């Protein structure tokens, strides 16, 4: 996928000026955010469950090699194949080879962020395969030639009327006067189109929400059932996911599922929670003949051994972005790569490099709302700050920023000079502001004054006032003590 993180600021500016996007984003607080809050209040042990989830994920990451090997063994025993991919290219090649071996022409896909990470669709299409996204949101994006702007609600940046227009344009063989207003009507129409694809698909590709080491199963959660049809109707099922998705047992997965749906959409459980373990066994009524799992690393094992390990606890619920005021302002595309919002700011530098993704961990006020809702209690602001530290050590911030910072820090380490500076500045600024009490333009702070006035200081520093008070109160006391 094309990386435009460098353009974050201009992406953000366009996003802020995009009225349709702003209309679409305005639904977040009353939608996913309110739904999560309601679900949380209905489950008294929710906060305990978060602790449990955090500890469980920490334990798994601590022994990731063990659980991955156990998972691989179990998949093999169930008759499936596991392919390890260090890079996105290796993952794409492995999937392409499986498709070619299956003489595939048509590939259906369930929602998978890892497939976005490796740029799978472009790769398969370049080799002449027809790829059809079957998640409604992903399907809409595919006909619009767009990428997801959210990890669980990929088309959240669109309004319903935009989708209606897309469907009328794309499905021009259907009756012109059909009703397409309610979400259910859009789903029905997509279903009608997709049904034919499901039946004729040669390969079905899904992601995985979790992999279970003890059984070799993969789990997907959906609300449309498209994942089930994708993986059970085609002859070959490929699971594309990453090495951080494994959990030890079925019970562990159940505990995490309780957190996942509530944190993501405020549901107790998603409409469909589908487990798949190997290919169809003798006597099974349906299921694929071939079962493959492609496990992507792409920088994760390096993160595992670093100060960023905690980011791998993520279960991709999207709560951090739903609650992020920056994401709410600019939407997901501005972030310029697969994972937007706070999780993207903490994770993407580890996957595509800090030189590439440096803007993201900087684009935060550290308000901490993401951490306060993260079901895995990932300290997202802390991780973003750590990326800033790495950037600073590499000398990435512009020279004048580093110089200004150094200059200011040296003064802060020299109280006498600092207080003198504060005294001069507060007097000078007070004088310059005159009676207005604020500045509408201020050199070196034009980023501020472009949008708001800058309040003027009161004129004296607190240290001045305090010294005056000390002089006033100490004098009479000393006089009183004189014999």
């Amino acid at each position, binding site marked *: 996928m094309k990386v435009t993180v460098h353009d974050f*600021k201009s992406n*953000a*500016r366009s996003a*802020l000026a995009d009225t349709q996007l702003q209309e679409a984003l305005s639904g977040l607080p009353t939608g996913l955010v309110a739904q999560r809050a309601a679900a949380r209040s209905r489950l008294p042990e929710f906060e305990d469950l978060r602790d449990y989830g955090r500890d469980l994920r920490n334990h798994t990451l601590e022994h990731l090699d063990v659980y991955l090997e156990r998972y691989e063994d179990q998949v093999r025993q169930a008759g499936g194949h596991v392919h390890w991919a260090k890079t996105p290219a290796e993952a794409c090649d492995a999937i392409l080879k499986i498709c070619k071996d299956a003489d595939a022409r048509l590939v259906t896909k369930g929602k998978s962020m890892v497939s976005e990470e490796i740029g799978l669709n472009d790769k398969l299409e370049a080799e002449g395969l027809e790829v059809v996204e079957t998640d409604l949101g992903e399907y809409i994006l595919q006909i619009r030639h767009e990428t997801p702007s959210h990890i669980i609600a990929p088309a959240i940046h669109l309004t319903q009327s935009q989708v209606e227009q897309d469907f009328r344009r794309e499905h021009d063989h259907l009756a012109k006067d059909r009703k397409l207003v309610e979400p259910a009507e859009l789903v029905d129409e997509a279903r009608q189109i997709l049904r034919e694809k499901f039946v004729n698909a040669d390969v079905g590709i899904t992601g995985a929400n979790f992999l279970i080491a003890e059984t070799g199963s993969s789990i997907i959660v959906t609300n449309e059932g498209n994942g089930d049809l994708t993986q059970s109707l085609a002859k070959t099922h490929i699971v594309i996911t990453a090495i951080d998705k494994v959990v030890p047992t079925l019970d562990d997965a159940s505990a995490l599922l309780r957190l996942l749906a509530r944190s993501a959409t405020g549901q107790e459980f998603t409409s469909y929670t589908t487990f798949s373990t190997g290919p169809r066994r003798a006597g099974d009524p349906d299921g694929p003949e071939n079962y493959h799992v492609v496990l992507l690393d792409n920088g994760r094992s390096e993160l595992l051994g670093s100060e960023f390990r905690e980011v791998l606890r993520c279960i991709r619920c999207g709560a951090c972005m739903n609650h992020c*005021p*920056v994401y709410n*302002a*600019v939407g997901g595309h501005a972030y310029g790569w697969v994972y937007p919002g706070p999780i993207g700011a903490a994770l993407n530098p580890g996957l595509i490099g800090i030189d590439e993704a440096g803007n993201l961990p*900087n*684009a*935060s*006020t*550290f*308000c*901490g*709302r993401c*951490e*306060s809702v993260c079901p895995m209690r990932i300290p997202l602001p802390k991780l973003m*700050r750590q990326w*800033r530290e*790495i950037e*600073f050590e590499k000398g990435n*911030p512009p020279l004048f*920023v580093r110089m200004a*910072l*150094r200059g*200011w*820090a*040296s*003064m*802060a*380490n020299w*109280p006498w000079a*600092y*207080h003198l500076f504060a005294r001069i500045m*507060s007097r000078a600024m007070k004088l310059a502001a005159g*009676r*207005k*009490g*604020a500045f*509408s333009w201020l050199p070196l*702070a034009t*980023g*501020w004054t*472009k*949008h*708001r*006035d*800058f*309040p003027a*200081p*009161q004129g*004296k*520093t*607190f*240290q*001045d*006032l*305090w010294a005056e*008070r000390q002089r006033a109160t100490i004098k009479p006391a000393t006089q009183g003590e004189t014999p």
Partner: protein
Amino acid sequence: MPEPTNKSPRVGLFVTCLVDMFRPSVGMAAVKLIEASGCDVVVPTAQTCCGQPAYNSGDRKDTKAIARQTIAAFEDVDYVVAPSGSCAGMLKSHYPRLFAETPEAEKANAFAGRVHELMQFLVDVRGMQIVPDAFANDFKGSVTYHDSCSGLRELGIKEQPRKLLTSIKGLQLKEMSDCEICCGFGGTFSVKFSDISNAMVEKKTANIAAAETDLILAGDLGCLMNMAGKLRRQGRKVACRHVAEVLAGELEDPPIGAPND
């Protein structure tokens, strides 16, 4: 309220750089309130800034130097109190992180244990339930309160300022929508990502205006300057003050960013 005596706890006021330079009246209000809670106040002159600009820019080395200086400056006080959730959070939560697993960890932890944000100190540590009558007798008006992020989420400051505010007879507290959502200040964020910051503060000032109060209060001068600057640019008439100013009855100076006629 106990009178200060020789045995009164000794409180070191961490002034914060913004209060020192821009709004010393907040510091004087804080002193008045801390003294009213039965403490003696000292103001070490060896203090400067808490180090957040460096810390949040990734400059750990300079931050550590500043932190060492701050810790040393407040060595001989019982408590360190700051009229800012953000700076208090830096001293209390982040100094220990800076020195974790180093020989200085113990010192940083002991220091952090003595640090409190002003509202938290008054209500939770000193047990202040109501504002002394003499401070706020004359106050009359409606206020809304913005929960600054670090204070709210790092230190758990939510009820304390409201408890004291609602003890003022003439004060009507009207909560605005989304009072817990960031105002978009974020230190250097407001300049580096000014357009996004602006979108955030626009939502905030719309909520402030919708609450239809005379005043918007908060416990952090950074957020207050951001909100005041935007309200003023938009020509909205809501006045902006630090919560300590209202509690201490220090209302002689014009509100933040207001003309001084």
